[in-house]
């Protein structure tokens, strides 16, 4: 068997792949957080909970309606996104004129409610979700064995992230969005319906989280706590990357996932804390974040 630095290659690449998968979720979630923060000036603490809801909706679609994974991949983000529209219209829209911290508190409360409801209904032990037929099994790449589904997750996440980046940077909708982030009043004066745009931005960010939740469902068990642990790491990712740049969020997300995966190989005890350690180093060296503009 091949060895690199005294570690088997298969182990190294296996952890690298796991790291990429975690990184995919960090990237998808921090991307949504950054878009929402840009438009609403709110840190959506409920993002992790909505990621969890996305996974649960996929599970429900399969168990109650018999709809498979491919349907869930489309329907779950739509359903959770629609729920986000309701949330924004009824609750979150009342926060724009008050201190941003209240947005954090309110969405934290929403996260508690969602997690509590699902925990009451489904317990906290986790529910299994099958890998779809077409993606089960794996491929032998010579240096490692790659489960097909894991490769699929990384691929889809990269494509989705790039698509979001393209929409924001290269289309006219994205241009309006960027303009409204800079100066909502002026954009509204040009005849753009900014309140509707805010609602849809929130829904889109949340739909991304739900999409990530569906992707995660077959890998982790569908579990009411799956979001709350993730969201704190994603906060650290956001602090490291800064929320100013879309591409920055994507790169930071994947990069930190890989860093975490490699730490599992070389120094497993630190794998849970490595992202926080990176955050500390970034705060010392570049307090505004790697891609952030100085505040």
């Amino acid at each position, binding site marked *: 068997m091949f060895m690199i630095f005294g570690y088997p290659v298969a182990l190294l690449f296996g952890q690298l792949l796991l790291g990429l998968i975690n990184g995919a979720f960090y990237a998808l979630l921090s991307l949504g957080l950054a878009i929402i*923060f840009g438009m609403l000036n709110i*840190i959506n603490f409920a993002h992790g909970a909505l990621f969890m809801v996305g996974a649960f909706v996929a599970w429900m679609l399969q168990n109650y309606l018999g709809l498979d994974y491919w349907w869930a991949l489309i329907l779950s983000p739509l359903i959770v996104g629609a729920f986000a529209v309701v949330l924004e219209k009824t*609750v979150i829209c*009342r*926060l724009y004129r*008050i201190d*941003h*911290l*209240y947005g*954090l*508190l*309110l969405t*934290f*409360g*929403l*996260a*508690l*409610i*969602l*997690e*509590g*409801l699902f*925990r*009451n209904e489904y317990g906290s032990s986790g529910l299994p979700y099958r890998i779809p037929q077409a993606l089960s099994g794996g491929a032998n790449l010579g240096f490692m064995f790659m489960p097909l589904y894991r490769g699929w997750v990384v691929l889809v996440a990269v494509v989705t992230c790039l698509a979001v980046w393209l929409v924001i940077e290269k289309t006219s909708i994205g241009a309006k969005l960027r303009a409204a982030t800079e100066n909502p009043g002026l954009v509204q004066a040009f005849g753009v319906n900014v309140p509707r745009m805010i609602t849809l931005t929130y829904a889109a960010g949340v739909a991304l989280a739900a999409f990530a939740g569906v992707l995660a469902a077959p890998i982790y068990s569908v579990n009411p706590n799956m979001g*709350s642990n993730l969201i*704190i*790491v994603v*906060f*650290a990712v*956001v*602090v490291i990357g800064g929320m100013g740049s879309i591409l920055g969020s994507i790169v930071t997300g994947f990069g930190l996932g890989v860093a975490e995966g490699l730490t599992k190989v070389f120094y497993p*005890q630190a794998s*849970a*804390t490595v992202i*926080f*350690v990176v*955050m*500390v180093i970034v*705060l*010392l060296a570049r*307090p505004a974040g790697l891609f952030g503009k100085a*505040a």
Partner: protein
Amino acid sequence: MFGFSKEQGIAFLLLLILVVVCPFVLYPVFLMNVLCFALLACAFNLLIGYVGLMSFGHAAYFGMGAYVCAYAAKVWGLTPEVCVLLGGITGGLLGVVFGWLAIRRQGIYFAMITLALAQMNYFFCLQAPFTHGEDGIQQVPRGALFGIFSLANDRAMYVFIAVLFLFFFLLIHRIVHSPFGQVLKAIRENEPRATSLGYRTDDYKLIAFILSCFIAGIAGGAKALVFGIATLTDVNFETSGEIVLMTLVGGMGTIFGPGVGALVLKGMENYLAGIGSWVTVVQGCIFVVCVLAFRRGIIGEIGARLKLVL
């Protein structure tokens, strides 16, 4: 005295009477739990209410205080007052490091950084051998105060905790109403202006942060002695959220609010224990309602109605 206005003096007298009378009516261990969390919420309120710093990771200082206090009492066999003090110092030292890192960013980022650092601390506690991981440090002896007065009796312990609470409550009040506290409030209102007046705002923020963490550590140590246990629950982020909720319910930036909030939430947990896991949902709902309709909190609302600063 202590910078109390007349109304605040009356309110403090009421508090004093309550602290003295309650153990004859209610279960002392419940009251001690309330007092420990009230102290913790007061420490948190020192930051959010008077400096405008939102620390979402106060469980770290509370929990580490609890661990070190429990360890000192059980393994080293030190007397309770020394153990609690060690808990406070631990909280304070952790506050030096975390505060020094976190004050580099403002507002919402500050909250996220403190939360992330607290989570890092949680993973440390999960793996470090002295915390005994999932089991926690159990069967911590309460010991004898100054090596003389045994605290094994709940009433005796209550007196110790009540004195501790009142001392630090008055200390916080004194800090807030000192010239130092005035600068803190200036930073809360307008930091660039405070800077332009020649104050090193970062130093003031850091000192306030360390003080708050020290008192949080004291509260944690006291709690560890009351229940004889220090566990991962004390350091996890649900506890951090609960602290925020207590302060929000009672009233941010009021002196008596955090204590009232602690009483309300701990009372709810105690008397609504029958609804089990619904407690999280209820807490979430309280968060949402408070933020939407009740931002001043209980004491803040009473104060606003009566046109008083409580």
